[in-house]
């Protein structure tokens, strides 16, 4: 074989567009021309529309539902209630957390805006008319919105359907409103460390209820083909394969008769992991009517009913010596799970991966207990741009370390440097049994401190404090745990959390790869192709990446928890290596040498010592279909199911500088410097974009987002009138930086990055705001740091005039 081109090695590498290059995104071309295909863009022949009658009450008995008038509305085709679903046993559905959730309210409603009836009509306007015409008679019941009151002896019993059960899927319960207790660590060791400690601190830290709020709400189109008996379900699914299995289990349809398709998704951030009543009702609707049924929620529905995040009432304690060296951590969490336990975590982890709460610090002992309770609020509890409950854990430890620094009179950078897991300790096993794969925390922090002239900032702050001005410097040195996960630890509904990639190389040397994940904006079509380009020596422009169709893609657990690169990205590399191994056999045959005489170079196998004698991957691809060594099967395809040996542990060091107006309470973010280490960097442009987006979501959470409820359970602020989404005006300018500490167990050393900026960002903002008041004796201020709350803090300190 001869090389037809005259390109240098560097040019050949550049042509590949592989790992490390800032390749422009392949998906952009359709989006910038309005040619994306989101679920609400789907228009099937005969398609009708469905939407819900929702409860105005947070807790009430449903005495009767009169649908007669609604059914008479022109254009209305059907009205479904729980009684209609009962014969199909679909009025309740299993949740991902072992509990059950009402699809349509069965005699009782448990939260405001809960689904009560489903109206199907020719178009959304007729449906809207129909919804108005449904008459529901409610008898209101006492409402429970404060999880602290949930376990009181005389508390109203919310879930009468499980009142007698001592277990609703995640362990023993001790009260009708109690869901589980999750207890980890060594209590005796931690208690002992506390009793002998020179310094202890305790802080009540509430991580408020927020919502991931992707710009596109949740929705689906269900289409039953009555002749073939096949159901196609299009939807905003972050995990389409899991949806297929769930639909099969609850609807009783054979899994091969169900095709789930996740088309383009307009952001997910965890909101689109769960299964919602709309999916079930649209499916029942299409089975009943024989016509495709679309359900797309409105924004208020989205914010008030489909998966919220956080709502963790945490009590944290640290014990330390007089030098600020931490000896132990104790945490209790009261977790408000709402009306149904529908949080999305790996099944064995009722508080997700919260036990990463020791963070970047070498803490000898720990004890964590989490109690989940029911309240009259929407169900959910998803990770909002973070790996399962990692943000809560990271926020807690990063806040607590600051509180400890204040107590022992240490600088917040110094206390971190004293407590860091050192680079020599990796792989490091934490006292809560996580094996951190790799890291270099001091280098990351020192790089940031130098970049921002930390010393200069401290001097400026000291001067401003003398003048009565409020300036805060916030640090966060976080460690994430992502890439769920090893099947020994992680499953969803008993299915191990592996992921997959299938590659087919076409005769002319281009390729298609299909994966079990599903992008919601992360740019998988671009970045997976880069991994494959480097591994296979095929230009990324010649590789199509497909996800989201369960009829074509291999089974995978989907995209959330920053798991795509750590798990499916690894599967991509492993599948490519299988192809390469076969390609080597074919190349040896083509070049008439032994396999061992060949070496790989960028895009070809070369004969060792005879560099001009080579076969490119493109040439090998063609040979795979016509010129094979004897005994080798034709074609060039591979599939890999990757069960990761461990999680990956991305980390970072963030620094935030704020100026606070003590007269108005307004917090101005002057500077935000974010250094991330996500191991091997596949596409720096995409990484930077992920960091910008994650920081902006962190900014939103720390500074303004909160779903609150009044005492009768009315959700306050479930629209964009009130729920804070920062615009381009409020959003700070971001500065990004990086170090590279590859993961030793991942095939290409990559760790994942999408969620790090949210995990680290929230603490950095919050720490900066509190730091602005630290010299006045303030150790903690609850999020979100809205001007009103900050103003109240100023008033309380007598500095607001």
């Amino acid at each position, binding site marked *: 074989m001869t090389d037809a081109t005259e390109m240098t090695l560097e040019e050949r590498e550049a042509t590949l567009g592989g790992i490390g290059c800032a390749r*422009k*995104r392949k*998906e*952009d*071309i*359709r*989006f*910038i*021309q*309005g*040619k*994306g*295909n*989101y679920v*609400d*863009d789907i*228009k099937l022949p005969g398609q009708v529309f469905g939407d819900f009658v929702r409860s105005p009450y947070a807790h009430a008995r449903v005495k009767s539902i009169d649908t007669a008038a609604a059914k008479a509305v*022109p254009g209305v085709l059907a009205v479904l209630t729980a009684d209609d679903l009962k014969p199909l046993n679909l009025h309740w559905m299993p949740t991902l957390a072992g509990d059950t959730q009402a699809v349509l309210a069965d005699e009782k409603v448990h939260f405001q805006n809960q689904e009560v009836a489903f109206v199907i009509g020719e*178009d*959304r*306007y007729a449906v809207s008319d129909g919804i108005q015409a449904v008459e529901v008679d409610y008898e209101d019941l006492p409402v429970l919105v404060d999880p602290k009151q949930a376990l009181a002896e005389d508390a109203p019993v919310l879930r009468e359907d499980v009142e007698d059960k001592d277990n609703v899927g995640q362990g023993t319960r001790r009260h009708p409103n109690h869901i589980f207790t999750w207890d980890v660590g060594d209590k005796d060791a931690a208690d002992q460390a506390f009793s002998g400690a020179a310094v202890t601190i305790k802080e009540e830290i509430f991580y408020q209820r927020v919502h991931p*709020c*992707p*710009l*596109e*709400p949740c929705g689906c189109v269900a289409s039953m083909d009555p002749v073939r008996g096949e159901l196609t379900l299009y939807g905003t699914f972050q995990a389409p394969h899991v949806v297929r299995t769930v639909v099969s289990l609850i609807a009783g349809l054979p899994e091969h008769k169900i095709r789930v398709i996740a088309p*383009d*998704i*307009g*952001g997910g*951030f965890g909101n689109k992991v769960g299964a919602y009543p709309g999916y079930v009702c649209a499916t029942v609707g299409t089975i009943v009517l024989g016509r495709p049924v679309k359900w797309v929620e*409105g*924004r*208020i529905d989205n914010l008030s009913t489909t998966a919220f995040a956080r709502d963790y009432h945490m009590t944290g304690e640290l014990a330390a010596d007089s030098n600020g060296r931490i000896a132990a951590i104790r945490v209790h969490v009261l977790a408000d799970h709402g009306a149904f336990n529908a949080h999305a975590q790996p099944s064995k982890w009722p508080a997700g991966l919260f036990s990463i709460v020791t963070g970047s610090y070498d803490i000898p002992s720990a004890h964590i207990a989490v109690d989940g309770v029911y309240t009259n609020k929407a169900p959910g509890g998803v990770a909002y741009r973070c790996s399962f409950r990692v943000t809560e854990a990271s926020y807690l430890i990063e806040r607590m370390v600051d509180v400890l620094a204040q107590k022992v009179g240490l600088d917040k950078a110094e206390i971190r440097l004293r407590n860091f897991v050192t680079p020599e300790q990796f792989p490091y096993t934490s006292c809560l049994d996580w094996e951190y794969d790799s890291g270099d925390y001091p280098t990351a922090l020192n790089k940031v401190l130098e970049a921002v002239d930390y010393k200069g900032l401290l001097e400026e702050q000291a001067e401003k404090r003398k003048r009565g001005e409020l300036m805060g410097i916030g640090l966060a040195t976080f460690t994430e745990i992502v890439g769920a996960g090893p099947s020994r630890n992680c499953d969803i509904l008993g299915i191990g959390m592996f992921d997959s990639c299938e590659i087919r190389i076409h005769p002319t040397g281009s390729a298609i790869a299909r994966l079990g994940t599903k992008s*919601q*904006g*992360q*740019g998988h079509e671009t970045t997976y192709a880069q991994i494959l380009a480097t591994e296979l020596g095929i230009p990324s422009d010649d590789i199509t990446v497909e996800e989201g169709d369960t009829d074509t893609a291999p089974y995978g657990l989907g995209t959330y928890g920053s798991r795509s690169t750590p798990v499916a990205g690894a599967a991509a590399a492993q599948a490519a290596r299988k192809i390469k191994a076969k390609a080597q056999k074919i190349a040896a045959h083509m070049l008439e040498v032994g396999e061992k005489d060949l070496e790989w170079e960028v895009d070809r196998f070369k004969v060792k010592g005879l560099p001009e004698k080579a076969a490119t991957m493109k040439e090998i691809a063609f040979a795979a279909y016509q010129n094979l060594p004897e005994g080798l099967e034709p074609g060039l395809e591979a599939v890999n199911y990757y069960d990761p040996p461990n999680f990956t542990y991305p980390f970072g060091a963030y620094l935030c500088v704020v100026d606070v107006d003590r007269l108005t309470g307004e917090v101005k973010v002057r500077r935000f410097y974010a250094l991330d280490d996500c191991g091997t960097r596949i596409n720096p*442009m*995409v990484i*930077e*974009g*992920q960091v*910008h*987006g*994650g*920081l*902006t*979501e962190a900014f939103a959470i720390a500074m303004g987002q909160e779903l609150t409820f009044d005492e009768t359970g009315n959700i306050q602020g479930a*629209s*964009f*009138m009130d729920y804070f*989404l920062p*615009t*381009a*005006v409020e*959003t700070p*300018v*971001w500065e990004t930086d990086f170090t590279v500490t590859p993961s030793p167990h991942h095939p290409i050393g990559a760790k994942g990055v999408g969620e790090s900026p949210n995990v680290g960002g929230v603490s950095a903002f919050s720490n900066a705001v509190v730091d602005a008041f630290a010299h006045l004796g303030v150790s903690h201020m609850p999020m979100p740091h809205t001007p009103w709350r900050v103003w109240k803090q100023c008033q309380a300190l007598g500095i607001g005039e």
Partner: protein
Amino acid sequence: MSKIPVKMTVNGRAVDELVEPRLLLVHFLREKLNLTGPHVGCETSHCGACTIDLDGMSVKSCTVFAVQAEGAEITTVEGMANADGSLSALQEGFMQEHGLQCGYCTPGMIMRAHRLLRENANPSDEEIRWELSGNLCRCTGYQNIVKAVRYAADKLNAQQEAAE
């Protein structure tokens, strides 16, 4: 509900349809004309995903009835490419500067930026941020959107200069 006729020009094409008076313009564009570029992200006129250009103004098409657009000249993102079919400077800018991720806000952002650059050919970064503040993005953190608009402004200004 009785229907009434409505005529308008959409992306240079004359449109003549019968609609219910309560039909929102965004549903008219998306469901009658199959122009699914404008998206619905809220029902309170905050998110801007449905932004179109209507008679030389940026308009959120989720809060206009189709009948109110009688006689109007409308451009949606589908009408943004250059006459020869090539990408407009703004479309190119969003791609070059990584100004989009999930793409849901992008059609609205592009349409708003289009009107902005017609009104102010050389906006500062701060002006761009103010002018786009009626359009929400959950993915990008806006920084690269600002760069994308800057890219388009620079390109259009350079073309203008070359032509003069």
